[in-house]
């Protein structure tokens, strides 16, 4: 009996494969026989939910609406969230591609890689990838040359270091805490190190394998550095409250790279507004689906400046006086 059932199962699977194999030869491989649709379809794959990435998606959807593409009316947005489970990303990518979208959007590196691996002809727009070239997504950040382009979330490090020196004239040693498990962080930390050392600061780096080690690492850090810098990093974003509470005890200021983290207990930053990243991603998607631009010759968009954000309450607590010029510059 049982034996029979297994035979049936194998026969069914073989049958499906055989039929697909026969019909697979008739169709063109990539579904280029697309009929023009009235409503464009966009497939979005987000790697995981956390405040920064969710804000990118929010900015993306709202900007599309402003440009006249309202979800479910004048555009169809197909959204999948991998929740950090990489084994599901490739199934989700296939699901998005099976709807024959006009463009795909990958939010965070693993999501973008999963999409890039599945298609070489549907345009892919990257949201929030620090260095697409390093992640192996494009040949060159200025001349992508394939079906991929997008927005880099590389923070304006030069401006950030300048801000630190203005707020803390006596600053000598700065500690950087970042995740050793994320591609995004490594390239940012390297850039920060180069820029800060040029400015005469000593940089100490502290890599953590996961959120569980943040507490220990921050305790070590607070004894060795004058200030803390955090890159745009999912692990650190998730464990940021731990860093804040320990740094507060030791009266050490934190300079994050993301504006939302200033509100959560950092002191100040010149950061890229995550919402704006989403807005820029949406603009690029619109350019691509209206055939204004093609991904292969659209350079990766990098923000040159960011918003200056200050947490004045925190500055008072730490006894840091904020120069007038900076106060005026900071957007309220």
């Amino acid at each position, binding site marked *: 009996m049982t034996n029979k059932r297994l035979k049936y199962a194998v026969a069914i699977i073989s049958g499906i*494969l055989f039929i697909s194999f026969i019909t*697979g030869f008739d169709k063109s491989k990539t579904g280029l026989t697309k009929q023009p649709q009235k409503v464009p379809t966009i497939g979005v794959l987000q790697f995981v939910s956390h405040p920064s990435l969710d804000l990118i998606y929010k900015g993306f959807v709202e900007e599309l609406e402003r440009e006249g593409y309202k979800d479910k009316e004048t555009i169809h947005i197909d959204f*999948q969230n991998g929740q950090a489970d*990489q*084994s*599901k990303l490739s199934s989700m990518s296939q699901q998005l591609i099976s709807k024959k979208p006009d463009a795909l959007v990958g939010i965070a590196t693993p999501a973008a890689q999963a999409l890039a*691996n599945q298609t070489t002809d549907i345009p892919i727009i990257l949201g929030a990838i620090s260095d697409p070239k390093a992640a192996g997504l494009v040949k060159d950040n200025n001349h992508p040359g394939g079906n991929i382009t997008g927005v880099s979330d590389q923070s304006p490090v030069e401006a950030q270091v300048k801000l630190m020196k203005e707020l803390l004239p006596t600053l000598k040693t700065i500690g950087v805490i970042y*995740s050793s498990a994320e*591609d995004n962080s490594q390239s940012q930390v390297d850039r920060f190190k180069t820029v800060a050392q040029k400015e005469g600061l000593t940089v100490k780096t502290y890599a953590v394998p996961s959120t569980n080690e943040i507490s220990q690492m921050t305790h070590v850090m607070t004894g060795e550095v004058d200030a803390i810098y955090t890159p745009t990093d999912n692990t650190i974003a998730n464990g940021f409250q731990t860093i804040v509470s320990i740094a507060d005890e030791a009266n050490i200021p934190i300079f994050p790279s993301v504006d939302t983290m200033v509100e959560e207990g950092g002191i100040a930053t010149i950061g890229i507004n995550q919402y704006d990243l989403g807005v820029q991603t949406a603009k690029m998607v619109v350019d691509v689906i209206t055939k204004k631009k093609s991904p292969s010759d659209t350079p990766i968009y990098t923000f040159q400046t960011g918003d200056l954000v200050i947490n004045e309450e925190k500055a008072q607590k730490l006894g840091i006086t904020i120069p007038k010029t900076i106060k005026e510059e900071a957007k309220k």
Partner: protein
Amino acid sequence: MIVSTIGQGILWSVLGLGIYLTYRILDFPDLTTEGSFPLGGAICVTAITNGVSPIVATLLGMIGGMLAGLTTGLLYTKGKIPVILSGILVMSALNSVMLFVMKSPNLSLLNQPKLFSLLSFANLPANFDVVLIGLIIIAIVIACLLGFLNTDLGQAYIATGDNEVMAKSLGIHTDKMKILGLVVSNGLIGLSGALIAQSDGYADINKGIGVIVIGLASIILGELLFGELTMIERFIAIVVGSIIYQLLILAVIKLSFDTTYLKFYSSVILGICLIIPELSRKFGNKKGGATND
């Protein structure tokens, strides 16, 4: 779409076979899996990006997994550390080993040759390269496993899992058998990690999270749907179970459930599968869970 899912199922089934060797035959919960799986991918992708041929790179990934299993086995038998703890120790140490190998947490294979591009000359319909290569590998793996289990050594291995005290009294070196099991099992897990990394197009140190569930799912589904089987049928059932699990996940995604809660759905699916035999016994239904595709 369905073909690529079947292809994924075939590649994941190598993991199921690896877990079966320890989980079912030796009754070991081996947690090395979540480290040896991404390790296989990390070694394989690093080798390919350094110009090694995909076939050799895939084998290197498998060897990496074997070494991980060996470490766990030695900690367990020689160091007398409980097997769960040994697995956890090795799993978390491998996180750093992968960083050392790849020099970064994530490495892409874009525009690099893969094992599946060996078939590019044949101009097959989409995704059939994965299915064919997967089937060839599965055939080789199952043949090797059956060959091994039918030798004296393999019989001794099964005996160790059945009754360790008896096996010892027959003069079987049970410790050696356990090490052997962990080595072969994690070799297969590393192999499947190498294959999945190539089909996904990148290796990542976090790829191991949750893979034990996928492996157990294929074993459980195979047992549930097909009941008592001979060894060869059992292995084929694991492959079928793995394919069905991937199809179930696809169904969940296809039915436009909110994928944010995907892990919850996959747990529910597995839970239901485990409850079905009990339910059918209660309600006198002779069909112990038909496929619900």
